[in-house]
């Protein structure tokens, strides 16, 4: 069963190709992640699938409905939580929900019951009469997720759902998202540039960079492709190491920012030999670490660069602050 079918979907803004002929299928009930750095084309993809942007070319079906032929049909069947906040701060939590319910023409009795249930689900029941401007970032996000579910969509889009939130709130939200997926069977497509988020939540991940999908699989499979272990070496001679190092148990090495990431099998067994060979070649070594491959290594493997993760960029931080502190 396919929830979303995307074929050769492309979006150009003038000369710039934001999304370049991507194709993928998302099964019903799946949590699917679009992982990539800022500006990779994730939000543009989501905007096209949610009918906010017209594709330049290509087709996509959401719940079997063509995004260009029947926009209203698609809109009725999806819920969306935007990257930027989209609540009315001058209204209460309940009123924001009620407004949404009316826009989707949900009859009054059903609407009120569902709002009650959903506010209970996201633990905002006791704050339902408070104005949204008094809410914290995490509460706003939860309210937006509840709102996105009000019309019982078959597919829920989450665009950077935990951007700018503190670790505790992120954890909390992840639990919500998983619960929603399991109990209600909702297909979830989320975009993120947080590796841990993609790893923890997603059944399958598409790594997207510069508008194209460069790898797509389950997080486990993606990591397996990198190798069973990863040794990261920090060294002034990193370029030499990356080109010269070789052994039957080494499956590859990439150099970036003064570090070499060596993909290999059974690192514990071979580490002594590896260090010895560093000595033989007289490489200067600053530090060496062994770890299981992470999505970060996967990303590096496919793109030859690290994702700019950790913190949102300066613009995001200012935006989050503005949202938080606005009256």
């Amino acid at each position: 069963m396919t929830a979303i079918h995307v074929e050769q979907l492309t979006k150009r803004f003038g000369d710039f190709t934001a999304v370049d002929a991507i194709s993928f299928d998302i099964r019903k009930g799946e949590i699917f992640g679009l992982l990539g750095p800022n500006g990779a084309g994730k939000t543009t993809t989501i905007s096209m699938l949610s009918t906010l942007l017209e594709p330049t070319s290509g087709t996509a079906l959401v719940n079997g409905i063509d995004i260009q032929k029947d926009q209203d049909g698609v809109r009725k069947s999806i819920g969306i939580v935007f990257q930027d906040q989209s609540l009315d701060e001058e209204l209460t939590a309940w009123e924001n929900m009620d407004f949404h319910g009316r826009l989707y023409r949900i009859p009054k009795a059903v609407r009120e019951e569902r709002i009650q249930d959903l506010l209970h689900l996201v633990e905002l029941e006791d704050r339902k009469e408070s104005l949204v401007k008094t809410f914290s970032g995490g509460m706003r996000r939860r309210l937006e997720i509840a709102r996105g579910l009000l019309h019982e969509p078959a597919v829920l889009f989450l665009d950077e759902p935990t951007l700018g939130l503190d670790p505790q709130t992120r954890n909390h939200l992840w639990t919500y998202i998983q619960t929603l997926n399991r109990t209600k069977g909702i297909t979830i497509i989320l975009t993120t540039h947080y590796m841990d988020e993609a790893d923890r939540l997603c059944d399958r991940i598409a790594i997207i960079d510069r508008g194209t999908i460069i790898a797509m699989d389950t997080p486990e499979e993606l990591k397996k492709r990198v190798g069973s272990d990863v040794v990261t070496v920090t060294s002034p001679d990193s370029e030499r190491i990356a080109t010269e190092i070789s052994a039957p148990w080494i499956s590859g090495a990439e150099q970036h920012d003064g570090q070499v990431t060596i993909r290999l099998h059974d690192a514990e067994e071979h580490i002594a030999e590896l260090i010895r060979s560093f000595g033989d070649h007289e490489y200067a070594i600053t530090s060496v670490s062994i770890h299981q491959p992470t999505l970060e290594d996967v990303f590096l493997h496919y793109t030859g660069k690290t994702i700019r993760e950790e913190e949102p960029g300066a613009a995001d931080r200012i935006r989050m602050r503005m949202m938080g502190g606005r009256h």
Partner: protein
Amino acid sequence: MDIVYTLWLRSLKRYVRSKSRIVGSLGMPVFFLLALGFGLNSVVQMPGDTGENYMQFLVPGIIAMSVLFTSVFSGIQIIWDKQFGFLKETLVAPVSRLEIMLGQTLGGATTAVIQGAFILILSLLIGIRFTSFTGFLIAFLFMTLIGICFAAFGIAIASKMEDMHGFQLIMNFVVFPIFGLSGALFPIESLPEWLVPLTLIDPLTYGVEGIRYGLLGTSAIHPLVCLAALGGCTAVMIVAGALLFRKASI
């Protein structure tokens, strides 16, 4: 229709909650009314022999002013919705942009008429007497038309604007001239002849004269002409606002 009502309801809720905005946007009209009214009442001799004084003459103009500014501002407010993301929430819903635009327009018009009504009540309190109850209804009809016309105008402008930076420009070079040329502050009969055509292409002129007819029983332009001109202009603004809003990017 229920979607239009939903948007209207939201406008009203926001309006009722923003006490500072209500008081703030009453400030300038009240100042004009009191300063110009009391200040010029004794020195200005109204042309003709209708027996009305300048204060009486001024009240309809200030009511129109209050409706004009509130409605343009409420239309332009969709820029805030755009900047703070709320517009996306409405645009991604399975509703037409026309419904959104109409709801926003009617919401803005309603708040504008309420602001105008405050001035009307104030002028009753400072001792102005008006002709009849029917006159009140006529005045409200024209206030409503001004409200709808200029809320739609505000939306049309907001659809073309990226952010609030151009707001001052619009206020100084569009809204103030509309107000200034409308005959709200002076009788249009006594203007130099070259200026008359300008006042006659200003839709607010017909609104001011319409309200004046309702409240004072006399007007420089026949009320039916006012109704036709302002009504026509309102229709044009709604169409323009709807077309521009439909094309507005988010």
